[in-house]
């Protein structure tokens, strides 16, 4: 299977605020591959480098060394993002626009025709249940509604690869179920989903493969079964891999 998301010796360094350290290494030589059609879970504790990896893949942060590509195109080329959809963890969109205007704006950036745009907007507003609120400005939306707008905009171009940064963070159980259903549906359509999450139960249920990152290093990668081999579940495997030691009983 072809790799549609690939990093090779990806390294990202930041200037450190700590006077004792010149630079802080966020990623040290990450080699990662995500194949077409799979649901890939990207795991790691806070500060592991997951968001940094996504930032590089999306072109927000330039790598210090190494490379990253989407569909074989270097991530520094804007065209690499033509076939992807992105849902950030914190969803903020132009508050003065309506949901419909926002989706139309992004559709124009993807170069969709007017007819295609109208069709996609209608489908997506129905999917995320925002048809009634579509003509109201986003500043009048609740948090949940704003997250649904985020989901809709990530799908406007019918992406082949969806990058989700903690998609169920802050959602109620119904919301989380909805997201899981959408991911499942995308998988059935042959799309690729690459997402980071702290909800290991969810990851275990839907992912084909996972990778565990810790302190900028890739610690484990493989199917859920391969990574959690020798452990009761993925959570225990995760805790062992990141070096968690339970506190002694008082």
């Amino acid at each position, binding site marked *: 299977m072809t790799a549609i998301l690939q990093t090779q010796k990806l390294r990202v360094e930041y200037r450190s605020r700590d006077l004792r350290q010149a630079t802080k290494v966020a990623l040290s030589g990450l080699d990662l591959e995500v194949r077409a059609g799979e649901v890939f879970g990207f795991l790691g504790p806070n500060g592991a480098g997951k968001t*940094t990896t996504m*930032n590089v893949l999306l072109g*927000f942060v330039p790598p210090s060394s190494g490379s990253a590509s989407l569909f074989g195109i270097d991530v520094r080329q*804007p*065209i690499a993002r033509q076939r992807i959809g992105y849902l950030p963890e914190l969803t903020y*969109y132009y508050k003065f626009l309506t949901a419909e205007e926002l989706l139309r*704006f992004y559709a124009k*950036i993807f170069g969709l025709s007017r007819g295609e745009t109208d069709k996609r907007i209608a489908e997506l507003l129905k999917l995320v249940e925002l048809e009634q609120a579509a003509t109201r400005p986003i500043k009048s939306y609740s948090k949940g509604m704003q997250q649904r707008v985020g989901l809709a905009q990530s799908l406007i171009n019918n992406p082949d690869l969806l990058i989700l*940064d903690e998609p169920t963070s802050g959602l109620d159980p119904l919301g989380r179920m909805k997201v899981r259903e959408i991911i499942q549906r995308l998988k059935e359509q042959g799309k690729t989903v690459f997402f980071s999450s702290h909800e290991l139960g969810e990851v275990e249920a839907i992912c084909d493969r996972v990778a565990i990152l810790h302190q900028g290093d890739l610690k484990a990668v493989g199917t859920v079964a391969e990574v959690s081999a020798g452990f009761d579940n993925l959570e225990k495997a995760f805790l062992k891999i990141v070096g968690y030691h339970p506190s002694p009983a008082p």
Partner: protein
Amino acid sequence: MNNIFALAGVVIKELYRRKDFYVLFVLTALLTLAAGAVNFFHDDKIVRYVKDICLLLIWISALVIAVVTTARQIPAEREARTIFPLLAKPVSRWQVIVGKFLGCWLATGVALVVFYFFFAAVTGSKEQIWPWGAYLEAIWMQWAMLAIVIAMALLGSIFFAAPSSTSTITIIVVGGILLLGTHLKVIALQQPEPMQFILTVVYFVMPHLEWYDLRDFVVYDMGLVPVRAVALATLYAAVWSGIFLLLAWFGFRRKSLNT
């Protein structure tokens, strides 16, 4: 190009959904009407001072709209985090810069047209003549100047996180050039070295925004500026805008944006 126009469209929508433009227009209108309502020596035909006051207010308002709108574009996107879903699309940073510039420039252009229509209505009601050629030339030149100012503010907004810093610095620089640009060489010649050298360099290097102020031609009914001069000034504005936009792009393209 689609991306650039799409970005510009969002900027224009934002300007007209905020209150700034309407407040400035109403203020300009009220002050002009107040000036026009005063009767000096029972003479209704006195009109030049009304033109002078109105055009001054238009210049100030248009400058404020241009600078304040532009200064907040990139910083507001970063602060509101709307820059991330935008850059996650197939949009280059150059397109973001140019799209923001175009949106701000077109929006201030529309504002200028509205202001000048009001100006033409007020002054035309007094003097019963409408020198449209002179008005069009004045609008065009002011709009060309605002292109340079907007590009300058956009450059500032890449390096200053706070829109207020960018606005203040841009307005000071622009105000200084408009007031002193014509006279800087004369001032320089009166200074001792090395100040003379520094001021002379500044005089030759800075964008001469004062060329674009055709208010005197409108107020004193001095006819039209030669088309060739207007064309060259337009080209000059395009070059300077391009320089500032390129510098803005250099500053923005490798900037790390962390979510």
